[in-house]
């Protein structure tokens, strides 16, 4: 399946195109099974989040990446704790893949005082400082720029940590996206940009975002390799991402990976996505990355329905436990609204304004 990878740009724009994983390098069976099981868990996690949202168990919105699991898993499954992730609003599952506890993630959805952001940001905007995951904002492409700064710091500190920065195809229309890639190219920064091209930016087709067929072409303009990969093929994504990550770690600079994929559901849980045809959705559901990996593993005799059921059952219990913890966790106290603004406290100043009277 990895042969589906297209490399329209790498040859033209490649600088120091050293490859750690040549096309012949085998990915071990354990890794293949891990890629599958992680995707499956991501799917189960998000479907649970969607149910909880529909049941109004938490407020706010949720932006499911169901259908895009291969891209998220393939590109982040092997990151080290010291590596950073710059997630967008649709990368909630990147937290899980990097190892964020489910209790923290569900506390995030529920806006509890125990959530990583103390109930502040938004349900799906999960970041996690201990694992270097930037808490996302909703302004598009901002995370790429901040992630680029983390890469700058890593380069200045002469360590070999990398940054994986996510964006969607819609964000490539913003000047900010280009500022980040341009700067990373100029400074040869250790960062991998993953553009998840799911064809729709909310309701707007990719055809209205860019004239090029492959977004990876844009890397040419910044002087580093760009590559388009089947974003529903986890093995292909993994292979391409590993090469890019290894290049970044070893001082070879940034890479832009375009993963062509599709979100099964609307932009958010309140978007029925009527701007897409049923045929298009069905066509992409037929390219389900998890089902594809099942076929792949089956051919290698690495898959059984029992194994899948076992993962599903065990993970359901983990999800149940995390949901229970989140639901029982306390809400923030109202007064905590005033906290975490500065390194100093502003409560006293906001609450006890002194009234002055004439003294003369």
């Amino acid at each position, binding site marked *: 399946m990895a042969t589906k990878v297209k490399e329209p740009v790498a040859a033209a724009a490649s600088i120091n195109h050293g490859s750690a994983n040549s096309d012949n390098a085998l990915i071990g069976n354990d890794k293949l099974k891990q890629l599958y099981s992680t995707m499956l868990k991501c799917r189960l996690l998000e479907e649970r989040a969607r149910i909880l949202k529909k049941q109004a168990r938490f407020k706010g919105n949720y932006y499911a990446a169901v259908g895009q699991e291969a891209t998220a898993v393939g590109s982040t499954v092997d990151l080290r704790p010291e590596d950073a992730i710059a997630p967008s609003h649709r990368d909630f599952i990147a937290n899980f893949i990097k190892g964020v506890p489910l209790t923290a993630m569900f506390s995030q959805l529920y806006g509890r005082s125990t959530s990583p952001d103390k109930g*502040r940001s938004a349900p799906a905007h999960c970041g996690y400082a201990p694992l270097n995951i930037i808490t996302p904002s909703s302004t598009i492409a901002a995370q790429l*720029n901040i992630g680029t700064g983390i890469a700058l710091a890593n380069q200045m500190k002469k360590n070999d940590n990398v940054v994986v920065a996510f964006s969607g195809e819609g964000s490539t229309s913003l000047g900010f996206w280009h500022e980040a890639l341009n700067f990373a190219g*100029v400074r040869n920064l250790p960062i991998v940009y993953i553009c998840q091209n799911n064809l729709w930016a909310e309701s707007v087709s990719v055809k209205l975002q860019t004239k090029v067929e492959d977004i990876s072409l844009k890397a040419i303009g910044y002087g580093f390799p760009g590559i388009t990969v089947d974003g529903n093929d986890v093995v292909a994504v993994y292979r391409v991402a590993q090469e890019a990550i290894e290049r970044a770690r070893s001082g070879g600079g940034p890479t832009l990976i375009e993963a062509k994929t599709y979100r099964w559901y609307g932009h958010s849980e309140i978007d029925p996505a009527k701007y897409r045809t049923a045929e298009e959705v069905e066509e992409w559901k037929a390219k389900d990355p998890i089902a594809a990996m099942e076929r792949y593993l089956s051919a290698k005799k690495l898959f059984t329905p029992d194994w899948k059921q076992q993962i599903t059952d065990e993970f359901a219990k983990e999800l149940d436990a995390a949901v229970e913890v989140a639901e029982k966790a306390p809400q923030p106290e109202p007064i905590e609204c005033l906290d975490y603004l500065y390194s100093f406290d502003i409560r006293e100043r906001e609450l006890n304004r002194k009234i002055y009277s004439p003294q003369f």
Partner: protein
Amino acid sequence: MSVTYLDAINAALTEEMRRDPGVFLIGEDIGVFGGAFGATKGLLEEFGADRVIDSPLAEGIIVSASIGAAMAGLRPVPEIQFVDFITPAMDAITQQAAKLRYRSGGSQTCPITLRVCYGGGTGGGLYHSQTNTTWFAHEPGLMVVAPATVSDAKGMLKASIRQDDPVIYFEHKKLYRWPAIKEDLPEGDDLLADLFHCAIRRPGKDATIVTYGFMLQLALQAADQLAEENGASIEVIDLRVLNPLDHDTILESVSRTGRLCIVQEDHRTLGIGSEISATVAEQAFDCLDAPIVRVSAPDVPAIPAAEPLEQFYMPNVAKIVDALHRVLQY
């Protein structure tokens, strides 16, 4: 040695870069060129191109790369050459830097010190003269400072770099080489200035002027002129910090003088004077003996280039004296 405001900035950067290897500079023309006004002269030579980064011409990435580097433990000091060009970085400043600590529940922070050159009166025209301090004073999560003296230029910059919050440091281009404010700063002293309080630059008892930046010079001249004219005793407060505002020093002063005149180079509507007026009206209403008066630029875009237009736009000593007359004679 008597030094200028610009020398003080350069010295502060030099000292902080020597003290902490995590301090680095990034901005347009700051390296080889030494800065559009010379604020970073000599720093590339001493600290090298990795710590004095000549950035691409892109304010957004100057600030956001700094945010990321600060998250990763460094102490970036990005520069915006003219505040007029800060708008491409507005998302980075107001949505990212200002909100990162809050949105991450205190777990992620970005202690950057964004040096911004601002201010008019030099014939720079619409896009080299603006005073957009209010945009940032309005944004919780940012600290905004505007030193008006040479000592503050140095001490506040050094303190800002060590502050665990994003600080926007507004430096007025007219003060860079303003001879009257040169000061003797002892060399080798680790001069750190307070980042939380106003300073009373001239004590008085009949009325209070609140101002900041270059306007402080004009306010002090106006106060002197009134003292000569009719013996009026005008207190002059240098705001120093525009966000978060030090209400108490202002309110305490007004409670003594009963009269308030606010002088700002920024235009009028929703400027810093509006906030101070409202605060005084809310918290010291009984202290007021006269309506609050604001001296500001009119509500037109920035500063027109032609000299008569610029003079009409900018507050000056005569306008402040006139305002003080109105406040005192009410």
